């Protein structure tokens, strides 16, 4: 082919397979570096001009604002970091109870979609389709303003055995002495309810909203997991004389869990992140405390770093726990 005397074809360097990756990466790195340097330069210049250069000393100054309900002891004279910590504890409180509630509700609805009762099956579908297509924030304000703030007070309050729902709060009965099974329910004293356990309506609305919303997604995860177990497993269990509920608990769920647990992980993380919408129904979680802190101290960068860091750690924690659980339920082969 190549006659003597023609020069060999030389690939120019910009089309050389050995160089292309480096050229592309170098270009991207340069672009990113230039943009980041530009933004950071502006940030430092503007912060210096505003006298707000990165510092953490302000965290020790007294916060000066109140938080309506806290798990950790807190009052307005305590420093900012205590306020943020109290907010974090409030977030953890709603996330943990929300996880438990949403899992229970989701499992119930998810398994209900396999019921032999046609009405129950359809209702489970309707619940999922209605809840998933309405924004969570809208649901939260609905629960807070329409349901919980409309509750009557005093004698007219909604009374169930061991539970009273009033506008002043949710009152729960609890064991006063677990050993002797002595139980104290809510009781009315001078028009005011008293009970061993009182939750605010803000917490109640947030928890209800999160549980109902996440429950619909978890129901889908559970349904997918149960549907992934072959029909033959149900039939085999039945021919061995298992009852339907027994089959579900002993045969199907252990196998379905392998599919369910990874799906649950992402739902749990989104519940943790969604808890930041607490501000819409007046519950003081980490985000709402951080917002107040920023407005008072003007420390935008530090507050943002704390917020992002806290939620990242929370997500990683949930992921780690769920990965551990995943290791437990996966099929162990010899």
């Amino acid at each position, binding site marked *: 082919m190549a006659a003597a005397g023609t020069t060999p074809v030389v690939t120019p360097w910009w089309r050389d397979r050995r160089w292309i990756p480096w050229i592309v990466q170098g270009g*991207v790195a340069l672009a*990113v570096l230039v943009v980041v340097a530009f933004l*950071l330069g*502006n940030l430092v210049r503007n912060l210096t001009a505003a006298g707000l250069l990165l510092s953490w000393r302000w965290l020790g100054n007294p916060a000066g604002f109140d938080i309506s309900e806290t798990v950790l002891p807190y009052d307005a004279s305590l420093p900012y970091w205590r306020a943020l910590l109290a907010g974090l504890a409030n977030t953890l409180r709603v996330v943990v109870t929300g996880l438990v509630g949403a899992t229970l509700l989701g499992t119930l609805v998810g398994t209900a979609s396999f019921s032999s*009762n046609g*009405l129950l099956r359809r209702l489970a579908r309707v619940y999922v389709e209605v809840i998933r297509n309405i924004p969570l924030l809208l649901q939260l304000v609905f629960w807070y303003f329409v349901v919980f703030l409309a509750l009557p007070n005093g004698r007219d309050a909604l009374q169930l055995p061991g539970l009273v729902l009033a506008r002043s709060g949710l009152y729960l009965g609890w064991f006063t002495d677990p050993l002797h099974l002595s139980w104290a329910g809510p009781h009315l004293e001078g028009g005011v309810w008293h009970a061993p356990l009182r939750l605010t309506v803000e917490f109640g609305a947030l928890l209800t909203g999160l549980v109902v919303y996440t429950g619909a997604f978890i129901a889908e995860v559970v349904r997918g997991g149960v549907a992934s177990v072959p029909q033959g497993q149900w039939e085999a269990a039945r021919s061995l004389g298992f009852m339907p509920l027994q089959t579900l608990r002993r045969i199907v769920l252990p196998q379905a869990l392998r599919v369910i647990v990874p799906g649950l992980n992402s739902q749990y993380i989104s519940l943790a992140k969604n808890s930041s919408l607490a501000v819409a129904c007046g519950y003081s979680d980490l*985000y709402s405390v951080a917002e107040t802190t920023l407005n008072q101290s003007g420390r935008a960068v530090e507050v943002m770093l704390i917020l992002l860091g806290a939620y990242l750690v929370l997500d990683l924690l949930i992921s780690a726990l769920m990965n551990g659980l995943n290791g437990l339920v996966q099929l162990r082969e010899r």
Partner: protein
Amino acid sequence: MERSVTPAGWQRLRRELFASRTDGLITLVLLGALLALGGGFLRWALFQAEWAVVRVNSTLFAVGRYPLDQQWRLWLLTALLAAATGLTWGLLRGRSWPRNDQLATVLLAGLALAAPLFLQLSLAIQARWWGITALLLGLRWGAGRWGDRLPQGWRRWLPLQWPLLYLLGMVLISGGLGLMAVRPSDWGGLLLTLVQSSFAILLCFPLGVALALGRRSELPLLRWGSVLYIEFIRGAPLITLLFLGQNILGFVLPGGLAPDRVWRAAWVLTFFAAAYVAEAVRSGLAAVPRGQMEAARALGLPVPQALIHVVLPQALRVALPATVGQFITLLQDTTLLSLIGLLDLLGVARTVMANPAFLGKNAEVYLLLAVLFWCCCAALGLGSRALETRLNPNTLSAARA
């Protein structure tokens, strides 16, 4: 068709609802609860609810504080959108009117007749809605009947009307080209929600695809950069990022360059959704066998072309349901704008209910918003499922055969 309850129908009903004693009990309890709930709701909706809050504020819910003398631009845009929809719909279906189309027509006509009456709009505005609906349905009929007479070249370029219409719509909404400028802070209600979500949906998709490709790239710098971005965004709640956009963007951009509050939020939504779309697309990319890329390369296609013509079409088809799911989430997430003080649908609702005249009318307003969002999201979901069956190679070849 026999519609009355036949013995077979009875049997089916019995099998579904009263198969055993427990089933019968469950059915009776559920039926009782449903009847009580439904009755209570109807009693409230018909006799107790005061729908005046919706009637009086319908303009506010639709467009916010958009200047009254400029609202003709939005009417024009709605009419153009209706025309484009009718044209596309007609050309797609031709002369046939499948059952779904009949249903949609009846629904549209019913909505155009009932909604203005319910809202007690003035006759002039009612007439506009009727005109727009007639335009849509008329073009559907006309394009279906005579569309095939259009020259083939014309028909090929017709889909281009959509991007052009989008740009034109942005000009009509915000002003420019000789139109009076309307500041974004004056947009509100459904208008703001739709502008924000459509902008974010359009831009987050290419960004998400790029990030997904970056995450699967063999170049370590691109891969780790994409992973870092995606995981950082997915680790943070949207509200903190919106908050960051409002508070930090002013610090990192030189004075005057930082966009308006509304556009800041739109960009944050875009960058946020891109990370989630990237994960959806990545799962689609993972579903395409490695051999596809290798075969394309062996045929001499350069990597970009192999990606565009061979790998991505297959990957995006697989990723379609998850991607549309993200779009639906994005549409719902626009409600968070009300938390940073913008007047989207929920923000307008909050200002309306702060008005002493409508204090305590929460239920009516929230119910209306819930119905609106539910319809939009359900429509997106239905559209995605229809597109899925259309793009499915099995049904495609069956339809052609």
